[in-house]
């Protein structure tokens, strides 16, 4: 292991419904690296991401953050991680601002003001609007706004571009690039092709049929 490695997996394996999704999965990411997990539906992309967040236990192997297993780090790992999964994780009865305030309270608040964050994801006009009345794409943008509202180094994103329009996709691709330039890490799955020029992008392909 080189000293600059931040996130590393060893021998990672996952079994679901008696099917072996992947075994001996190994990768290492340094600051500014991005990992794109590819593969057909049901090949274990989401499972891999959830294992990386610690929400799901791996069926073998371990995940190291700065050389320490993540289950030993607990809160110290979670304050570095921001996760956007299939579910947006936003409360429909609360306004955009209230939702982001909660996200901040749960993690480490970033230095940007929440107004700036909403401005960046084009939701400033909806700051006080109840999330339930927003469109699916706007909810997704709000979920992704959590990444900016908190000061997390590792972004774990499961299909972040679901229900986003072309402009928003380009906008978030740009934000991802900025995050990588600021020495952040991104692990994501996506069926949409995104091009991030000049970045160190690793790709893992998980095969389905076993």
């Amino acid at each position: 292991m080189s000293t600059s490695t931040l996130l590393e997996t060893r021998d990672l394996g996952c079994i679901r419904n008696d099917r072996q999704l992947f075994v001996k999965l190994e990768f290492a990411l340094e600051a500014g690296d991005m990992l794109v997990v590819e593969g057909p539906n049901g090949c274990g992309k989401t499972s891999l991401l959830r294992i990386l967040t610690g929400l799901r236990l791996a069926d073998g192997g371990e995940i190291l953050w700065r050389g320490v297993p993540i289950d030993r780090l607990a809160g110290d790992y979670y304050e570095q991680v921001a996760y956007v999964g299939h579910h947006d994780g936003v409360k429909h009865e609360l306004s955009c601002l209230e939702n982001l305030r909660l996200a901040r309270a749960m993690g480490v608040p970033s230095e940007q003001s929440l107004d700036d964050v909403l401005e960046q994801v084009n939701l400033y006009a909806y700051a006080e609007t109840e999330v339930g009345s927003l469109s699916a794409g706007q909810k997704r943008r709000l979920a992704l706004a959590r990444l900016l509202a908190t000061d997390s180094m590792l972004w774990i994103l499961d299909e972040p571009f679901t229900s986003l329009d072309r402009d928003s996709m380009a906008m978030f691709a740009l934000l991802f690039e900025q995050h990588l330039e600021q020495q952040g890490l991104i692990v994501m799955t996506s069926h949409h092709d995104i091009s991030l020029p000049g970045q160190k992008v690793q790709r893992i392909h998980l095969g389905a049929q076993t």
Partner: protein
Amino acid sequence: MSHRLSLLQAFVFLLRRDLLLALRNRAEYTMPLLFFVLVITLFPLALGAEPVLLARIAPGIIWVAALLAAMLSLDSIFRSDFDDGSLEQILLSAHPVAVLVLAKVSAHWLVTGLPLLIVAPLLAEMLGMPTSAQGTLLLTILIGTPILSLIGAIGVALTVGLRKGGIILSLLVLPLYVPVLIFAASAIENAAMGFEVSAQIYMLLAFLFLSVSLSPWATAAALRMSAS
């Protein structure tokens, strides 16, 4: 680099969020209270004009109704958070999950347990419970209902991932509620007859401290299991 909030701030924040959500979903949260009032008002109608009998069984009626009302409201502690993915965000928080769980359970108690404290004396009066027992009634509700929320949270956390967890939840939780029911009802009965009640109250307090200190950890562990 900015820092994470203190644990107390995060606790208060989550508590406030849940109270705000309850305020915006008023209909859902007034149902258990309404149920409590309705069940108790139906008893005098069903039993007829028997003031002596009513006064005698009043402690039991009130506590059984409180128990069922609590059961009715339990699912709401984690259901919506589980469905919309907020629960994952809570589990991935930098703060200890057990403390956040305690914040959510406290909010649940403030919304469902505390109102019982306000209406119970009126209902006790209606059933003809002797005035000497009403102080004890309030005390048992004050100590007992948080226990119901705390124990219930473990059950909900275990069953929230199941599609039809309702029946399992009642089977899991109800046996654990029985000691609270027994000691609370017996305390009120003793008070009505003018006897000492401290033994029962101490037992209830012991249950309360036991569940405050153990239930958040068990609930947090169960939530992790349900979420994975």
